[in-house]
């Protein structure tokens, strides 16, 4: 009898244990959200990789849940797509600064940023949790199709000086920051210009993207006195189309998305040509950041000069405009 009682009690306990142990981690999902409790060892990156297919989308989880990191057993909601694609809120809206560099290294030229300053600026971005995104990622934001991180910044480098490879590229690699280099292709013959081999190396790294900055670097807004409207248009077509042909002949079929206007100046004719050539964006050097409604063919960019202090750099990094 005693044995029987023991047997019954043990079976009872075992069944209880079995039910408890069989509880799988709870994940509730539909077409818009996934709700779960984090497991020990989970990070924002690992959850982004597991549920969104890309660890770099960790910001989606961080932003949506308003957290910086995870603790085990934390209730987390993962939106399959970040719902607020234009970054508009009752107290203001998201804006994106596009930084514009030219040369790097030592030198008295104002447009040359020293390696120390560039390193300090990149380190500042990292330490203050700015997200450097590729220029191409702006296209979807400007059409409110896909959100970008709230503290997004874009890095661009004009002209194609060799110091882009010697000085900037190793620092960009160190921080894993993407950048877009705008080349004006007639300059590629100059002794201090990038070599195609260096361009190819940077492109293959997946960090650096190359887009056109005209053929000869003229001011595109100005017609010469002797030029007719038609001749001006033809000259502009050459300035827009030729550099792209040159870049793609060296790098293969890469996506074209942005044209950088020399001196930041453009005209209706140039914009028409860009549209016809399927460019999505054009960048000026009008200072200021860009909201989701920015006119994509005249995006603002902030010049970074060699003698800019870190405080001046900091002032440029506006990612939210209050209304």
């Amino acid at each position: 009898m005693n044995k029987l009682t023991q047997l019954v009690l043990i079976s009872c306990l075992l069944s209880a244990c079995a039910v408890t142990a069989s509880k799988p981690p709870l994940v509730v999902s539909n077409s818009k959200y996934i709700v779960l409790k984090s497991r020990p060892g989970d990070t924002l990156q690992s959850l982004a990789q597991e549920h969104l297919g890309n660890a770099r989308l960790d910001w989606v989880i961080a932003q949506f849940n308003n957290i910086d990191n995870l603790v085990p057993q934390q209730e987390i909601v993962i939106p399959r797509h970040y719902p607020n694609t234009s970054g508009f809120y009752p107290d203001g809206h998201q804006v994106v600064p596009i930084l514009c560099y030219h040369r790097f290294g030592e030198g008295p030229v104002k447009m040359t940023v020293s390696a120390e300053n560039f390193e300090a600026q990149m380190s500042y971005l990292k330490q203050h949790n700015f997200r450097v995104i590729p220029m191409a990622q702006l296209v979807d934001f400007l059409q409110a199709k896909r959100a970008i991180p709230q503290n997004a910044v874009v890095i661009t480098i004009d002209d194609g000086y060799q110091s882009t490879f010697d000085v900037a590229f190793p620092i960009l690699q160190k921080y894993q920051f993407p950048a877009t280099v705008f080349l004006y292709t007639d300059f590629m013959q100059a002794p201090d210009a990038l070599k195609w081999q260096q361009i190819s190396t940077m492109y293959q790294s997946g960090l650096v993207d190359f887009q056109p900055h005209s053929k000869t670097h003229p001011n595109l807004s100005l017609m010469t006195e002797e030029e007719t409207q038609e001749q001006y248009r033809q000259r502009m077509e050459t300035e827009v189309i030729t550099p792209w042909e040159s870049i793609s002949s060296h790098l293969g079929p890469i996506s074209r998305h942005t044209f950088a206007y020399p001196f930041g100046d453009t005209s209706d004719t140039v914009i028409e040509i860009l549209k016809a050539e399927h460019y999505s964006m054009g960048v000026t050097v009008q200072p200021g950041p860009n909201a989701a409604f920015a006119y994509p063919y005249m995006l603002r960019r902030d010049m970074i000069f060699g003698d800019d202090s870190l405080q001046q750099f900091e002032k440029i990094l506006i990612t939210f405009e209050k209304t």
Partner: protein
Amino acid sequence: MNKFIFGLFLILIASACSLQPQTPSQRYQEEFSIQARKERAQTLVEQKRYQQALSEYEILQMLEPENADLVNRANILRASIQRQNRSYKLLAEKALAQNHKKRARQLLYKALALQPNDAETLAQLRTLDEKKQKSIQSARTRKLQESLHKNEPALSEAENYRQQRSGNFQLELAQSLFNDKDWEGGLQELKRFLQNNPKDRRAITLARTAYEHLLEELRTQQQWEALIDTYEQALVYADNTRAFQYRQEMNRIKEKLSEAYYLRGMQAYKNDVDLAIDHWEQALQYNPRHNKAKLRLNKAYQIRRKLNQIMVDSEK
């Protein structure tokens, strides 16, 4: 003994029953902080962060699929968002028709805060930005052409960029926009210049004059709300005498506006409690001592709560 075994058998059955696998809803209740999420959704509604509140209700619907109250609340919220979004867009259209671009922009921002993915509103704002950017470019091109005709030496690339950033160009551009009577556009450029050169006397005088013109224009058009905004901005650059005048004028207009909103609320009250609440809240924003608006608003809040409850109960 038989009784004893039967007893044990009953205990076993009972325990087995208690260990039945939970339904999904029971498990969600146990694992997720549903109540806290409901409270958060309510707080977000009160803070007018409607899109975030809507997300919370959508998530809650996943966790309590059988709760009709959540569906109701989400539907009410969606309808309210759409209604408010529509009215901001209509007001923005009016403002644009009166060429009051700044006011239109602010209203479109409000519309987008309610529906951030509204492509139509974004397109309207983009058109405004395109016009602004093109007007800056054409002023710049004009200036470059003048320099070319005068055979002035071309600026170095660095000087060119520095000039664009330093703001001297913005000052010239502001002047050129004022010449075209584009007070708002010119003031925008001038303010950017003044951010970097806050003590520049020429720019301050220019700003005062431009604000005087803009205020006069808005007074003539009877754009009272825009006038209040503009007075507030003009105060930054005004001397003491002007500042005193501006404040007096603002108080007078605010009282009038408060009363107008109160009356609009009274008109809307019978058909649309939400709209009446919006109007009375606005009345109190302009005059926090408008006691009649305060009383009406408190009653309207109670009515809205009751209406929501009735809707929820009727669904049940």
